[in-house]
C-alpha cells in the first residue's frame, strides 16, 4: 500500500530499456492518477485504521480512563483479564456459543431455505422476497419485537406452544434459553445468506444433475457430489463472514437484555450475564466504567481473533485472493 509506484501503463508490455521521454511522462501521469483516485482511501486507511490500531495497542498497556492522562501500567490489564475479571470468561463463553452454535445454525437454515426456494415452480420470486424481507428489519426493531413475542407472560409464542401442549420456556428471561432465543432471531434475519445461497444453487448447471440422475444417484448423493462442491466456496464465505459477525455480536444482545429486563438495573447480560458478549464487555469497561485501558486490551484480543478468521477467508476463498483478480493492462 505504501509503495504506489505505477508500473503498468497501456504499453506495459513494451521493453522498458531507455523509455522515451513521452513514456516517462505517461508513467508520471499514471502514478498521479492512481494517487488521485486512491487519495481518500489512503487518508482513511491512515486515519481510521492505522492510527487507531496503534493507539489501541498502546492504550492497552495504560490505565487510561479517557479523562485523566494515561499512565503506562505494563501488562496489568492483560493480567486482570486472565486471572481476575469476574465477567470475562462468561463473556468469552457466550461469544463462543454464538460462534459455534448460532452461526452454523444460521448457515444451515439459510441453506435449507434456499434449497426449498430453488425447487419452487410457482411463486419463487414472491417467496424469495418474503424470506429476505426480515433481513432488512433494523436489528433494534427486530429484537424489541422478538422480546415482546417471546415474553413468557403475555407473548404469543408460549401461548401457541401451550395450544399444542408444550409448556414454553422463559426465553429471554431464562439464562439457559436467552441465547437460543437470540439464535431464533438470527434465523429469522438470515435472508441475506439465503439469497447468496440461492444464487449459487441456481448457478449449478442443470446438466450435472441430469448426469448424476442417469448414473442413479439418489437425492442425498446428488446433493453431496453435485450441489455441495459447486456451492462450497459460497458456504465458506458465508461461514467465515458469519463467524466474524458473531465475534462482533452486540446490538441484539444488548437490546434484548435491556428490554426483557424491564427494570434497567443489572441489564447488561440479563438474565444472569447469559447474553453478555465479549464486545459488550469491552463497551461496558470502556464507556460505563472508567477502564478504557482495559477495554483496549480486550480490543487487542478481539482484533487478533477476528484477523485469524479473516486469514482463513483470504487463503481459502478465491474471490478474496488478489492474485486471481484479472490483470487488465491499461
Amino acid at each position, binding site marked *: 500500500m505504501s509503495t504506489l509506484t505505477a*508500473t503498468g501503463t497501456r504499453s506495459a508490455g513494451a521493453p522498458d530499456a531507455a523509455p522515451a521521454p513521452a513514456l516517462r511522462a505517461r508513467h508520471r501521469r499514471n502514478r498521479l492518477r492512481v494517487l488521485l483516485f486512491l487519495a481518500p482511501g489512503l487518508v482513511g486507511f491512515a486515519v481510521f*485504521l492505522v492510527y487507531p490500531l496503534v493507539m489501541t495497542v498502546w492504550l492497552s498497556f495504560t490505565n487510561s480512563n479517557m479523562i485523566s492522562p494515561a499512565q503506562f501500567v505494563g501488562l496489568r490489564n492483560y493480567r486482570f483479564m486472565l486471572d481476575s475479571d469476574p465477567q470475562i470468561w462468561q463473556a468469552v463463553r457466550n461469544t463462543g456459543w454464538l460462534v459455534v452454535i448460532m452461526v452454523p445454525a444460521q448457515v444451515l437454515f439459510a441453506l435449507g431455505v434456499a434449497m426449498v426456494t430453488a425447487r419452487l415452480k410457482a411463486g419463487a420470486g414472491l417467496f424469495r422476497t418474503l424470506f429476505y424481507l426480515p433481513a432488512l428489519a433494523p436489528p433494534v426493531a427486530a429484537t424489541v419485537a422478538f422480546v415482546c413475542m417471546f415474553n413468557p407472560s403475555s407473548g404469543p409464542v408460549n401461548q401457541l406452544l401451550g395450544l399444542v401442549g408444550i409448556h414454553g420456556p422463559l426465553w429471554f428471561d431464562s439464562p439457559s434459553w436467552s441465547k437460543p432465543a437470540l439464535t431464533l432471531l438470527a434465523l429469522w434475519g438470515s435472508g441475506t445468506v439465503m439469497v447468496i445461497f440461492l444464487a449459487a444453487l441456481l448457478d449449478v448447471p442443470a446438466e450435472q444433475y441430469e448426469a448424476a440422475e442417469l448414473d442413479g444417484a439418489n437425492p442425498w448423493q446428488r446433493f453431496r457430489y453435485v450441489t455441495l462442491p459447486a456451492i462450497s466456496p459460497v458456504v465458506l464465505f458465508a461461514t467465515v463472514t458469519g463467524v466474524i459477525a458473531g465475534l462482533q455480536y452486540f446490538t441484539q444482545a444488548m437490546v434484548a437484555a435491556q428490554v426483557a429486563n424491564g427494570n434497567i438495573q443489572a441489564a447488561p447480560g440479563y438474565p444472569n450475564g447469559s447474553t453478555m458478549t465479549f464486545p459488550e464487555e469491552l463497551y461496558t469497561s470502556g464507556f460505563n466504567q472508567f477502564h478504557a485501558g482495559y477495554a483496549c486490551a480486550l480490543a487487542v484480543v478481539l482484533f487478533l481473533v477476528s484477523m485469524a478468521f479473516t486469514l482463513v477467508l483470504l487463503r481459502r476463498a478465491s474471490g478474496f485472493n488478489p492474485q486471481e483478480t484479472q490483470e487488465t493492462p491499461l
Partner: protein
Amino acid sequence: MTSYAPASARAARSASPHRAARSRARRRRALVWVADHAVAVGLACAFVGPIVFVMLTSVMTDQQSLSSDLWPRHWQWSNYTTVFRTAPFGTWLINTVVYAVAATGAMLLSSIPIAYALARFRFRGRNAAFLAVITMMMLPPQVLVIPMYLMWARLHLTGTIWPLVIPSLFGDAFSVFLLRQFLLTIPEDYLNAARVDGCSELRVLTRVVLPMMRPAVVAVGLFAFFNAWNDYYGPLIYTGETPAHWTLALGLASFKTSHAVQWNLTMAATLIAMAPVIIVFFFAQKAFIEGVTLTGVKG
C-alpha cells in the same frame, strides 16, 4: 391406476409399463410440488408472522397488550400519534434520515473512484491495497472505538452525528469491495474504446463505467443507507449524551424502559422504525437481491 384397466390392457401391453412409469413420475412430481410449496408457505408464515404481530400489537390498548390476546379488540390507531408525543421520534426520524443520506452520499463519492482504481489500474501495491480493504471490512468496529472516540472528542465532535458521517468521505471498505467485484465483470473492451477516443480516465469512469455500473451503485447505496439507518453502535457511542441527536435505533432501544410505556406503544415505535425499510425494499427489491448476490457470488 392403469393396472386395473382390463379393456385396453391386452392391446396396450407393450406401451403400458412405460405409461405407468410416466404417470407415476407425474404423480410423484405433483406430490413433490405440493410438499415443496407447503414447506414454503409454512416458512413464509414464520418469516412474516413477527411483522404481522408487531402491526396487530401496535394498535392494541395498554391493557390488552399486557395480556396474551392476539387480535386487537379495539383498534387504537391513536397509538401512533401518542408515540410521537411521548418521545421525540420526529427528531430522531429526521436525524436518522440525515445520517443515512449524508453517509451514503459521502460513501459513493469516495468509494467509486477507489474501487475503480483497484479494479482497473495496475500499480505496485495494488494487492496490498486490496488486502487493506479486506482487513478494514472484516475488522470489528469495537477494536478501534476507544482511540476513535478520543480523537473525535479532541475535535469537539462527540455528541453529534459527524463522527458517523465523516469517515464515509474516505471510502467504505465493504462498498469498495462490492463495487470492485462488479467492475471486474465489465469487459475491458468497452473502456478501451472510450480511451481510444481520447477520454481521460475520469471521463471514462463518469461517462462509460458509471452508467454501466448503475445496478451496483444502487445496491451499494441502498446497503449503505440501511446500514446507517439500522446502526445502533455508532450513535450509541457518539450521540449518547445528547438525545436531541439520537437516531431511531437508539431511541427505540430505550423507549420502553425510559418512557414507562407498555408493549402497544413499543410495537408502534418498532413499526415506525421498520416501515421505511420495508417500503423502500418493495420498490428496490431487484437492486437489493442483485447486490446481495454480488456479495457472495465471487466468494
